[in-house]
């Protein structure tokens, strides 16, 4: 017996959320798609995992998923990190969907902190888990104020903050959650993806949905939306680079995680996107440890 039948026997609905709640979330999603980058308040529910652990993303996925979907869940780019495993198991049990680790096979990719290296295609949906949706939050703690600032397009403080970085460090010191301007209107927090991933948001053919459960906000980037990382003319936006390549697949174009090997300073760099790395290794004739696929 799978966990799936046990949950439905216990009276839980498909994909956990009741239909009224899903409808409410879909309405919020439609509004979010209609106003790219605008944070839509929604009646976020308690989920059976803690706030701050992906409840926003889980609710968005629960509202859009169907039995024919193929779901991929990653955390830090990896399919096998504990929280990704936990969320994937949750949907395998409650929504009875097929799961995969292959980015190109997935119809929905739920992610925390990364955008996959494999370019997303039309028809795919990327669901991002968002801890703090408000890009101005560290500059203004009050929600009542920041909502006004968005309404008035009053984003000067953010530019000043970036300029202060330039004055102090000679460069912009934001490395993740790097602020973007959506279609020239709304300042948006891309969730804490590294700025390395910011260019992947720009004019992406895939639909991108952002869910913040605890803060009760949903926002979206419809396909082919213009997403511009803030910068200055004389200090253009740039992404992280590494002197090393991936020690496993040799990639020079992916985001690398540093793995500490011993206590004498030994370390290696490997792709944070495990699917990308595995596929490259397979192409090089190395064994591919993709163990998922099919109904979990």
């Amino acid at each position, binding site marked *: 017996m799978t966990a799936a039948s046990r949950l439905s026997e216990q009276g839980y609905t498909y994909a956990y959320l009741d239909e009224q709640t899903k409808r409410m979330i879909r309405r919020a999603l439609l509004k979010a798609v209609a106003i790219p980058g605008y944070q839509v308040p929604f009646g976020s529910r308690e989920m059976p995992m803690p706030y*701050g652990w992906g409840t926003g993303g889980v609710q968005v996925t629960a509202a859009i998923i169907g039995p024919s979907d193929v779901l991929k869940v990653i955390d830090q780019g990896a399919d096998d990190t504990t929280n990704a495993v936990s969320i994937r198991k949750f949907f395998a049990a409650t929504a009875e969907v097929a799961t995969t680790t292959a980015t190109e096979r997935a119809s929905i990719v739920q992610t*925390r902190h990364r955008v996959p290296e494999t370019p997303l295609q039309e028809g795919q949906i990327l669901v991002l888990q968002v801890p703090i949706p408000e890009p101005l939050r560290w500059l203004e703690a009050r929600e009542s104020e920041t909502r006004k600032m968005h309404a008035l397009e009053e984003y000067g403080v953010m530019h000043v903050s970036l300029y202060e970085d330039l004055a102090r460090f000679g460069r912009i010191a934001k490395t993740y959650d790097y602020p973007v301007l959506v279609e020239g209107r709304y300042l948006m927090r891309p969730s804490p993806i590294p700025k390395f991933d910011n260019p992947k948001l720009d004019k992406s053919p895939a639909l991108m949905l952002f869910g913040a459960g605890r803060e009760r906000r949903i926002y979206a980037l419809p396909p082919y939306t213009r997403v511009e990382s803030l910068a200055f003319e004389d200090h253009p936006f740039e992404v992280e680079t590494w002197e090393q390549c991936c020690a496993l697949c040799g990639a020079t174009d992916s985001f690398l995680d540093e793995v500490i090997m011993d206590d004498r300073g030994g370390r290696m760099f490997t792709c944070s996107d495990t699917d990308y790395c595995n596929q490259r290794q397979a192409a090089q004739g190395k064994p591919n440890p993709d163990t998922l696929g099919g109904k979990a």
Partner: protein
Amino acid sequence: MYVAVKGGEKAIDNAHAWLKALRRGDPSVPDLGLEQIGQQLALAVDRVMTEGSLYDRDLAALAIKQARGDLIEAIFLLRAYRTTLPRFGVSEPLDTARMSLKRRISATFKDLPGGQLLGPTFDYTHRLLDFTLAAEGEMPAPAPESEPQDEGPVPRVADLLGDQGLIERSAADSGEAAAEAPVSDITRDSLRLPAERDLRLQMLARGDEGFLLALAYSTQRGYGNNHPFAGEIRCGQVAVAFTPEELGFEIEIGEIEVTECQMVNQFAGSDEAPPQFTRGYGLSFGQSERKAMSMALVDRALRAAELGEESSAPANDAEFVLYHCDNVQATGFTEHLKLPHYVDFQSELTLLRRLRAEFFAKRTQAEEKEAAE
């Protein structure tokens, strides 16, 4: 080497199996029954029901057992279950004047209609560890019983004051319109600011006891003082009535135990309002007295601005209080720091190494320049 981050699935299963075994503990020790928790840890059950926003003693006891006595975890379990339940509607307002009382005290009047009823309380016990409980505990002698007094409703202190106009009217008795206004529901909508009192009270009712206790305490120590008196604290069974749409009349669907606290606070009056006392209100499930009192103090503190008082203390700040009082949200986000953050940390590492390289390059340059001169 790289296997360190692999095998998450197996690690999770194994960890959960270990947790289950630890929860049960030594199998030679009898298993804890839900009835035992419900009866003998009744105040833990009360707190879990209050902050879990679900009145169900058995489920709360189950949650406490499953959570190994971690009450915030139990509250979370109950909340997550609660969201899956259908919502039929809103009950009629509880009439706490008709409560069958277990306890009722007033700190503002020595005697009053209905009398003072101490009830089962820790107050005035000497906090000495009772070692007879450890030695398998003998059955306590039955508590002395007295003849029940006449059954009539016991008026609330706030109503007694209200009859003389000495205390402000609350929204519900200031006219039909207020009573008929739809009640917001914090479990269905996101919090919008400024929040009306109905929303604020809902959030405080499910707010963390410890957080509200500290805030309430801060108002007494000078951070937003509002000169409170415990007008009345009452605890007992009260009937819940519901009007189903298809019937069109009120039916009683059960009884719940609640604790209600009405704080009476000074108010000097203003140009528009005559001097009169103001209210702070607290309500909790079961006998959660500390929570009800804290809630009443914070409720009143959040009304400072509306009453034209100074409102610069933390407990006066609705956005601060309401956004941070929910312990399910707070514990989730605080503990999410346990989740992997390799990617963000790597970005920071990369930047830090660059900044350090630039720093040392600049210093070397300066030293070389100095040496050359």
